[in-house]
């Protein structure tokens, strides 16, 4: 039977970095290679049976991953903004090209971007003194990255966890800078409790909304109050708990979502990035997620 619900990830995956190997490269005066870590993340995700994978975001935490390569940003304990934010050169594109080469034909690739508002709120500003201006400059820079990514990925996912704590009135404009006219589908991932901002979320200029329905099951009831025509990526396993959800449990959770969103549930995924889980646990969660999806798809 044709699969209708695709399994997906949010972004990060827990791969240990071999610092001794990196130092051996340094002493041999060879450039450090991140290929083994991308390969390991891709290997786990594809072995687990995930339909849409990421490169694992193993290089850096999701803020530094982007700000490190943007002009105007300086990395200290946190990112410091010390000049006008500008896009300098491709940030994640090379890793995505490498990841794509590793994928079996039936597996899709997600281009993951950390959203402009999350980048803004995670940085210390010593230059702009205007939060909105920072957010818009981050959005313009991310737009350039998104345009390059469309040549290599199946869809783009914008990760905006800060929205659940604080949603600026200009949030739709920010997201639209990245998504308008982009040639692939787009997903907005907002983890945390989004029950208070659902009316705004359902109007966001993206194709898919992604939320942590497993850790926050009350979101089902909250969404019932608002008509949502958007496609949904359903958080179906927790990213903050080492207990591995059984396939039966995941299926029950998905069925609950299907009753509310009907055919709009197009993806199932972990609630968030899996960076903080032990690798074996993260893998098993993905495996059970994929198994649940397969059963529901009649496989």
């Amino acid at each position, binding site marked *: 039977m044709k699969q209708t619900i695709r399994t997906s990830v949010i972004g990060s995956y827990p791969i240990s*970095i071999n*610092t*001794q190997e*990196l*130092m*051996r*490269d*340094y*002493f041999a*005066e*060879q*450039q*450090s290679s991140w290929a083994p870590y991308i390969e390991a993340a891709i290997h786990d995700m594809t072995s687990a049976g995930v339909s849409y994978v990421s490169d694992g975001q193993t*290089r*850096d*935490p999701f803020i*530094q991953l982007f700000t*490190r390569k943007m002009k105007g940003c*300086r*990395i*200290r*304990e946190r990112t410091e903004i010390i000049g006008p934010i500008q896009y300098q050169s491709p940030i994640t594109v090379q890793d995505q090209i490498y990841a794509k080469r590793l994928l079996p034909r039936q597996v899709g690739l997600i281009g993951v971007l950390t959203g402009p508002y999350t980048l803004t709120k995670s940085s210390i500003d010593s230059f702009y003194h205007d939060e909105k201006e920072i957010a818009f400059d981050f959005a313009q820079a991310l737009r350039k990255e998104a345009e390059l990514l469309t040549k290599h990925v199946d869809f783009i996912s914008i990760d905006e966890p800060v929205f659940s704590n604080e949603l600026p009135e200009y949030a739709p404009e920010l997201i639209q800078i990245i998504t308008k006219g982009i040639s692939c589908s787009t997903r907005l991932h907002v983890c945390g409790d989004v029950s208070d901002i659902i009316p705004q979320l359902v109007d966001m200029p993206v194709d898919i909304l992604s939320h942590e329905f497993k850790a926050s099951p009350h979101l089902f009831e909250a969404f019932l109050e608002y008509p949502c025509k958007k496609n949904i990526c359903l958080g179906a396993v927790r990213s903050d708990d080492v207990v591995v959800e059984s396939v039966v449990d995941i299926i029950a959770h998905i069925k609950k979502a299907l009753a509310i969103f009907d055919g709009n549930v197009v993806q199932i995924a972990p609630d968030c990035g899996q960076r903080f889980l032990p690798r074996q646990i993260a893998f098993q969660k993905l495996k059970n997620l994929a198994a649940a999806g397969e059963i529901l798809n009649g496989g």
Partner: protein
Amino acid sequence: MYSFTKEQKVFDISGISIGGQPGMYPTVLFGGLFFKGEPDFEDAKRHLQILYERSKQTGVPVIPDFFIRRIEYIEPILSFIEKTIPKKHPFSIDIIEPSLKIQMLEQLAERKLLPRTIYNSIHIGITKEEHEALRTYTPEAALIVAFNPKDSSPDGKIEVLENGAHLLETGLLETTHQIGIEKLLIDTAALAPGENSGAAIAALPVIKEEYGLPAGCAIHNVVEKSRWLNDFPFAKKTVDVGSNAAIPLFGGDFAIFGPIENAELVIPLIAWQDILVSEYTENYFGITPVPSHPRRKLLK
């Protein structure tokens, strides 16, 4: 030429002073031995003699840096150090493999050599076992390699010192502090040409202004990796030696040069560069060179 607003630390490492404001103390030279092949002790003895003689003539302090590649070399190299290096004079031990480092530390302790040892080096590859061994057998001083595989810029080097660039639980400075080593020398991690090699030099004043710690690097490695210079063999040697002058010019405190055969050329070059720096920094910043400084020794 530089003078720093941050108070500059000066460490006495077994009789050699390192650090401070540019122009105050002479640049310390680490001369590398045994990087290739079997250790040739007769050859090394000859080169060390020249190293110390030129140091005495010029006032440029020297520290031999012994590279140990194999476990079977530990014992003969440490015996060589005991017999050949002047008593109380410091030396550094350069090992890459953590397991070898641990065995070397144990032997240094047995031979009571730790108070003269500069540990080369602590970096992001430090293991738990190495950390424990260093706490048990703590050397007098350590070189900290500020190599950040994520960011080769001076900011990246600061990041790895501060927080380990998310590759370690703590930054390299805190790691070294936990071990109990207080005399830290920051190696700004020279990278190959094409990989932002100039950042190792640019980072020298940045590190000194940020932490006030002695800073330097092995900039001559960049010359060795500049393959295009192979077409200019005579110039290559000159560039290799000359590259070391960039370190005192940018406010650095030590240069790790090699091979030790170059001592004949590198030591007078550094003496010349130190004089140049000292003349200006005394005139403009009022930094008086110590009596042993090449300027005091060579300019009568």
